[in-house]
């Protein structure tokens, strides 16, 4: 075991809901490493790796990120540290969201869109409900350290009405079929982000988080 440790794993708390389950799930795979939940920009800066979760509505999330002075710290982390975005924490990486017509952080060219009503039917002609809630399959579209040990097509837990639509297909790390084939994971360099909730996705979710904890991008 290496004793070299360069800081904690920090879950960024910008006041949007409960982060306990993200924290608990990370602790369960962190192998004794320190996992902190913090709203303090300096703690985020001290992190070795950063997790940005998020639930609720994107406009509220962006506003809270600003109000709490966390925007810059999150942007910095996304530039040079192992960075994991979850749900709204993924959506905010894009330029813009249809939800509340709000600007995101703009790290990924493209937008966040609502599931289009006209495509919300399954192969049997039954209406698909929104929010997309439950366990759906994630098809791996690129080789990623975070997919290691996870079967292609594995099911993860989703709950959302909006999805990311990156302009550059090079960002797409996973896709999921729900009326449309949408991007359910993005990745590039030190950034990995998912629409699904690994912290609520039983064994496959924990496996992904374990991969993140020791990821060396």
């Amino acid at each position: 075991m290496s004793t070299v440790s360069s800081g904690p794993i920090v879950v960024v708390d910008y006041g949007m809901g409960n982060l306990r389950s993200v924290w608990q799930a990370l602790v369960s795979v962190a192998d004794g490493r320190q996992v902190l939940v913090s709203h303090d920009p300096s703690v985020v800066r001290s992190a070795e790796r950063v997790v940005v979760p998020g639930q609720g509505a994107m406009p509220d999330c962006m506003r809270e990120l600003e109000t709490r002075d966390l925007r810059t710290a999150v942007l910095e982390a996304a530039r040079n540290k192992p960075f994991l975005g979850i749900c709204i924490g993924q959506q905010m990486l894009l330029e813009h969201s249809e939800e509340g017509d709000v600007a995101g952080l703009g790290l990924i060219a493209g937008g966040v869109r609502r599931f289009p009503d006209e495509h919300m039917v399954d192969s049997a002609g039954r209406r698909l409900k929104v929010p997309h809630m439950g366990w759906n399959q994630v098809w791996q579209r690129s080789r990623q350290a975070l997919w290691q040990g996870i079967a292609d097509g594995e099911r993860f837990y989703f709950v959302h009405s909006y999805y990311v639509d990156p302009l550059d297909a090079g960002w797409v790390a996973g896709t999921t079929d729900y009326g449309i084939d949408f991007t359910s994971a993005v990745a590039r360099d030190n950034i990995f982000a998912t629409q699904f909730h690994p912290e609520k996705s039983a064994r496959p979710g924990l496996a992904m988080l374990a991969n993140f904890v020791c990821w060396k991008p």
Partner: protein
Amino acid sequence: MGLAKRIIPCLDVTAGRVVKGTNFVDLRDAGDPVEIARRYDEQGADEVAFLDITASSDQRDIILHIVEACAAQVFIPLTVGGGVRSVADVRRLLNAGADKVSINTAAVENPDLIAEASAKVGNQCIVVAIDAKQSSPGAWQVFTHGGRRNTGLDALIWARRVQQLGAGEILLTSMDRDGTRNGFDLALTRAVSDAVDIPVIASGGVGTLQHLADGVSVGNADAVLAASIFHFADYTVRQAKEFMRERGIEVRL
């Protein structure tokens, strides 16, 4: 392939203990909700639901400790309901580690609570529980207070209303079937599921695996909830899923 239909085992909890006994042979403590939830997770449950039926208000906070302990060990979604009366109650449960909170009587008495709660915490966290009883063929009325009080509300109208107010999901229980083991009220389930755009969890009356499958394939439910068939170890969640998959229903296995 696509979104799986969910199976949700439900535990009735009072003062921190599971009410109905369980026949899990190798549980150290059959009354411990956390240990049972963990067992269901191992069996492949898609979510777990706790219904807090604690009568006395001074024991209400016990559920928070149970939720905390559960969230530390079980990494699937957890829904908690029973006695939720305010946004503060919703927040307390979410902060303890619940992923969704279900509101029943208080939603009928104060529909604004649904709007207020979903605006504060997001509609994905708000489940409205509807207890319905047939009043005439093809018509059902909403009951509260554990099925004792008829509100006179039409179940389909109420279901559409709670969606409008911001519910993220509906937990629909047939009071006619609850506890009978005669199967879901499929006409009710289908009528409500077709009336709304949000997911509907069917509940009340499951006695066989066929009942679970019917809830999805006939009732159009997005998820099925059951208590006793899993508690008494008649079937495991995995057996239920295998049964459903053999009948062409998409499940997570």
